[in-house]
């Protein structure tokens, strides 16, 4: 799936200093409700899967059936947008390289996540390179949890991508221009991106990139329907 990687939203990282987020690091996608955080996260997931890496999708709201159906929908959109045929090999990659860990009815806690990840490696030999964490409430989550999650990323040698919900009416930012609700956590996140609807599409802006803030030229336009890179 070379075609896909060339239009993946993660292409924005080609403009970043190190090109990737990297194991042990946390990355976050900030956007207002309804802009398409989940879709964009799933594109990040496909990018990894089609590079034949393994991925764990951690869902804090939806059950695994819902998650699977999101992947199916986006997969089909992707095939359509790229004009490629459905292929047994792709589907097998999708099945074998993705695992969903769902935590419903407020069951999420760090100890459990760690135990679950350990079981995946020890019992199944499933070693992910990436965790996608969708639905974590940044406003309600203590700073310590993120510190711990950073340790988890180090321990399991994974990069972790989050989505964070921002609000139109809260304009608070950190000194370096990092928006609410990540403004007080920016030291913990290696990459911070913002998804913003604009006149000609949706813009993915790189706000923090490893050691650099407000990355020049670090903005990319995405197709508002498919979330694929336009330029």
């Amino acid at each position, binding site marked *: 799936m070379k075609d896909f990687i060339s239009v993946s939203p993660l292409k924005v990282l080609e403009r970043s200093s190190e090109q990737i987020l990297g194991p042990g690091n946390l990355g976050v996608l900030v956007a207002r409700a309804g802009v398409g955080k989940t879709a964009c996260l799933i594109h990040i997931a496909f990018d990894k899967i089609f590079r034949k890496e393994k991925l764990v999708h951690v869902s804090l709201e939806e059950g695994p059936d819902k998650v699977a159906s999101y992947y199916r929908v986006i997969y089909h959109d992707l095939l359509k947008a790229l004009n490629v045929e459905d292929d047994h090999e792709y589907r097998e990659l999708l099945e074998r390289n993705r695992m969903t860990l769902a935590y419903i*009815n407020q069951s999420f806690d760090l100890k459990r996540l760690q135990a679950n990840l350990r079981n*995946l490696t020890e019992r199944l030999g499933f070693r992910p390179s990436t965790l996608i964490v969708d639905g974590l409430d940044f406003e309600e989550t203590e700073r310590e949890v993120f510190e711990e999650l950073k340790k988890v990323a180090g321990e399991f040698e994974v990069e972790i991508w989050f989505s964070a919900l921002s609000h139109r009416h809260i304009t608070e930012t950190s000194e370096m221009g990092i928006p609410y609700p990540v403004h007080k956590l920016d030291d913990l996140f290696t990459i911070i991106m913002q998804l913003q609807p604009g006149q000609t599409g949706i813009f993915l802006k790189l706000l923090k990139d490893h050691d650099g803030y407000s990355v020049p030229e670090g903005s990319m336009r995405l197709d508002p329907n498919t979330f694929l890179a336009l330029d």
Partner: protein
Amino acid sequence: MDEIRKLRNIGISAHIDSGKTTLTERILYFTKRIFAIHEVKGKDGVGATMDSMELEKERGITIASAATHCEWKGHRINIIDTPGHVDFTIEVERALRVMDGAVLILCSVGGVQSQSITVDRQMKRYEVPRIAFINKCDRAGADPYKVVDQLREKLGHNAVFMQIPIGLESELSGIVDLVSMKALYFEGPNGDEVRTGEIPPSMVDEAMLKREELLDAASMFSDDLMEAILEENPTPDLIHEAVRNGTVSRHLTPVFLGSAYKNIGVQAVLDGINRYLPSPPDVKNAALDIDRDEAEVPLETDPDKPVVALAFKLEVTPYGQLTYLRIYQGSIGKGDDITLTRTGRKIKVGRLVRMHAEQMEDLTSAKAGDIVALFGVDCYSGDTFTSGGLNYTMSSMFVPEPVISLSISPEDNKSQTNMSKALNRFVREDPTFRSYVDQESGETIISGMGELHLEVYVERMKREFSARVTTGMPQVAYREAITRRADFDYTHKKQTGGSGQFGRVTGFMEPSEESAYEFVNQIKGGVIPTEYIPAVDKGFQSCLNKGAALGFPVVGMKVTINDGKSHSVDSSELAFTQAAIGAFKQAYIKARPVILEPVMKVSVEGPSEFQGSIMGSINQRRGLITSSTEDGDFTTIDAEVPLAEMFGYATVLRSLTQGRAEFTMEFLKYSRVPRSLSEELKANLRGKSRGEKKS
């Protein structure tokens, strides 16, 4: 609408022997449906009402009902019989589907046993809100407190006492109601009179404590109650409303207790059913729209909309076939036309009845939400009826191919007859259950969707039909499929004295994802005369039953014929059928057939501490784990596992988890058997054909 709000469709479910029959009978007695209490299976030879076919046959008027109607304090209650066997079959599934709520009975001595776990999981899967009744508090060793702990720990319920017992074991004399803070005693010969009294002084402290717990739990589901508690004025109505919210949303399980046998606490359970279990409009139901690729459409408990009803149970009675219906939407009246979705046929509603314990009531009409029965309707159970041109079905019309089979043989002549009766009946009830006689061995083969599925029917054959049968080893239903295109050009020619046989077919076979078999005729200029084309098709089809690779049925093949030759004298249908058979054989191996095996969607649920061992056990079985879901203290692991690897898994799982995990499986798809295993399979089959037949 008010009327519908006062309707309850409930099930009563329990571990065997915890008192389901006794409680049901008491309920029917207190609601004045039966007029005497008999001891269950007692010495007067009279059994409890729901359970005893024998009694009913004798009296000749009543029928063992799948649903019984009764009334309690202005509410109408339909009690749906949950089949005694707890294994997951389509019959249980349908009963669970039509109930809106349930009473889970637990024995105060035995507590939460493995069967209660299974039953409870099923209810959870079908999103059935429950209240619990801890029965047999009069027995030695009764410990309702332990049972509530188990409800929390083993079943993950947010269980809360609505009552506490006054005395236990032989001292049990009544209950304290924690909402009204009164003691309730059940007096008169059969406990008919409920006397309210003050809480015994020695119990006041405990009652206060348990009430606090109840208020704490209930206030999570009502801001009004929360406020009232702060103002120190939580009224009974506010508490009832909060408990109801919690129960209907399946976040709270109110616990009742007593002794059905000693008539203690039964009326309070009835009150609980009215107060806390949902009415039909409180529950979401959906149908599938066949015209829109079975898209889900929500149904409304509205008597004025077009009819959507599900036939959930058939019963053969002396008066003819009785079909139990749950009406989800619309109204059905005597003389109305309704359409059977499966056949598209219109049916005139003749006799419409409601079943009471000891009689049948004729109705002129029935409305959305209700459960009624129809006489003389020819249908299967699971069928959907509609009106107003809706092409809806309550369950998917897609019937999967069976994945497992088993030979059965009757032990004696009587069993032979009974077995045939049973098989006829099961096939009507359950489209995934099949039965046929194997041409080669003469054995009767039953096939279905899993080991358990077949076991349940064998068990029912024994119990309900007194057919004693022995069974063979379960066999996985393998299939064969080709993987590439291969051409054929075959001439069948025979010259035996007079007129000969001649036919030639040319074309190719290729894999097809769409269908099991497809035949395409591209013959031009009549090189094979049109009248012989069906014979060619027939020839190919006759080869599909036994593939040439290992003798398994062939699926997913498209055959195209594009050329051929005939002879004006010697060609015949037979000759072309033979030619097609020859062509099939010629091309089949070239088309690289592989063996397919059924893969099941397996879901294992158990306490989270076992996640690792459960994952390991699935991994060992060539399983692919797709997700793991944490919910409270429980983990559910979803996986895809080849059926052949699942034999005996129940035992393995039980020992891995001390019996605290459960699994379900259903057919998912056919997948290619890995090469190494298909070699093994070949070797086994060769051994078998040399006479090492498994029995």
